[in-house]
């Protein structure tokens, strides 16, 4: 099914006047549905370029204020000491590309376009005051997110079919956050960014999970009451059932 969809989309793209635009790309789906059986998802992007070049795809999750704390030893015990707030740290940051990004763009270019975990802007609200501490805390943030599979860099996950058609695949782990993601498809040629195409991607709970979440947040007292009743009923049922055995 996916293959037919892809071929159809590629045929459609190929029939378009490509000279007008250097890059045309789209997602196989614009909604990632988190249902009761959700174990992560693969998002597939495909598109065409107007000639040779490299393609980088950057997916950025919704930001969430995150505190990074450093432990230090106090009287033999490890306790949290210094901390740093990253006010808009993305909850997901994935990069896939046709070649390793540092081979196709200079560090200055990567910084300017914020491509790659080492180049994305991650700063506390008052960067001047904490200048010396920032690299260490930033690295710790990146490390923790990488451990959870939320910050990923995978060169080679963008494959060209011929010279102009490409396809990219990125994996969202099971513990991904909900919200609106930004998908940037970047065309690179001769060490320069030719164009960037941005598409939104919605990650949302659907069905039972969504209903439970909404109920818990909108009618929380009633939700708590239901939770108590379920728990008490389950306990009573078990006691009654075991009495007969």
């Amino acid at each position, binding site marked *: 099914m996916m293959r037919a969809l892809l071929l159809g989309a590629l045929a459609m793209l190929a029939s378009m006047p490509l000279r007008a635009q250097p890059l045309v790309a789209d997602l196989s789906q614009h909604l990632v549905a988190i249902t009761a059986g959700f174990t992560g998802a693969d998002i597939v992007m495909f598109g065409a370029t107007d000639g040779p070049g490299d393609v980088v795809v950057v997916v950025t999750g919704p930001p969430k204020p995150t*505190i990074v704390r450093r432990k230090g030893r106090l009287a033999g015990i490890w306790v949290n000491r210094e901390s740093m707030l990253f006010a808009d740290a993305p909850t997901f940051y994935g990069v896939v590309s046709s070649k390793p990004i540092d081979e196709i763009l200079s560090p200055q270019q990567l910084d300017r376009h914020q491509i790659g975990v080492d180049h994305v802007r991650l700063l506390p609200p008052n960067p001047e005051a904490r200048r010396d501490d920032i690299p260490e805390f930033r690295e710790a943030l990146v490390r923790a997110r990488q451990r959870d599979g939320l910050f990923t860099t995978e060169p080679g996950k963008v494959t060209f079919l011929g010279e102009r058609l490409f396809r990219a695949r990125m994996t969202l782990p099971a513990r991904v956050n909900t919200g609106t993601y930004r998908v940037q498809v970047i065309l690179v040629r001769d060490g320069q960014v030719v164009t960037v195409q941005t598409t939104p991607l919605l990650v949302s709970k659907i069905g039972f999970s969504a209903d439970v979440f909404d109920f818990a947040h909108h009618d929380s007292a009633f939700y708590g009451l239901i939770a108590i009743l379920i728990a008490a009923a389950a306990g009573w049922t078990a006691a009654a059932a075991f009495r007969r055995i």
Partner: protein
Amino acid sequence: MHVYLPIAELSVNWFILLLVGGGVGFLSGMFGVGGGFLMTPLLIFLGVPAPVAVGTGAAQILASSVSGVLAHWRRQNVDVQMGVALTAGGFLGSVLGIWIFTVLRQAGQVDLVIRICFVLFLGGVGGLMLIESARTWFRQATAPGVRKRKLHEHHWLHGLPLKLRFRRSKLYISALLPLAVGFAIGVLTAIMGVGGGFILVPAMIYILGMPTQMVVGTSLFQTLFVAANVTILQSVTNQTVDVLLAILLIVGGVVGAQLGTRFGARLRGEQLRILLALLVLGVGLRLAFDLFTTPADFYSLAPEGQG
């Protein structure tokens, strides 16, 4: 095999959750402890965010304590009078505890305080129980049938006013005593996010002087109300009760609790206490170990506003 938990926002193997629920439920039914001191760390270990682990744990503890109380009720092992006094103290204590929790969370030290509390209480309670119950067992083993246990010891605590007769427990003590014990447990419950059974059970045995068989049912009775209170409070203030996670833990837990109650009824009081003491000590040592060993990563992340 995987199921997505809507509030924890996490995909977990449901069979593991059934096993975790069953194991903790078994211990809960056997010892009369809610099992929160085991459940909360286990859930966090599975990747459930700490606030969700605490909130959902409360719902699970509620279910297993209802199941356990009913089983003990049939054996007439619940002192309702004592349970009500403990619960009343517990509600007042949890108000103070929640305030302390908020202050600590803002300072980013709540995790440390919880750990230190656990280590101190688990270590202290476990150690004392182990010594006492081992001594009793040893004495009985060397001189079987000779020693006749006094109903309880008399000391200064029995001079307090407002004396009440607790018929089921065969006690005549001041009502202030269970109220104060309940209050202290309430404070700890709110800070540590556990039912407090592992502290309550020894407190009832050694401070109130209740008979061991009566303690378990009565402790579960008190735990029931504390857990119900926490479930509501967590739902309203933090929205951290995951019903789906709770149901899976409960299904395992209620079955485990029934089996545990049956198994526990076959053991002698001091055997039960030795086993509980070993379990409590084990968890305490594990946590102490984490406190003193060099962490793998010196840094930790937290969403803003959470400890």
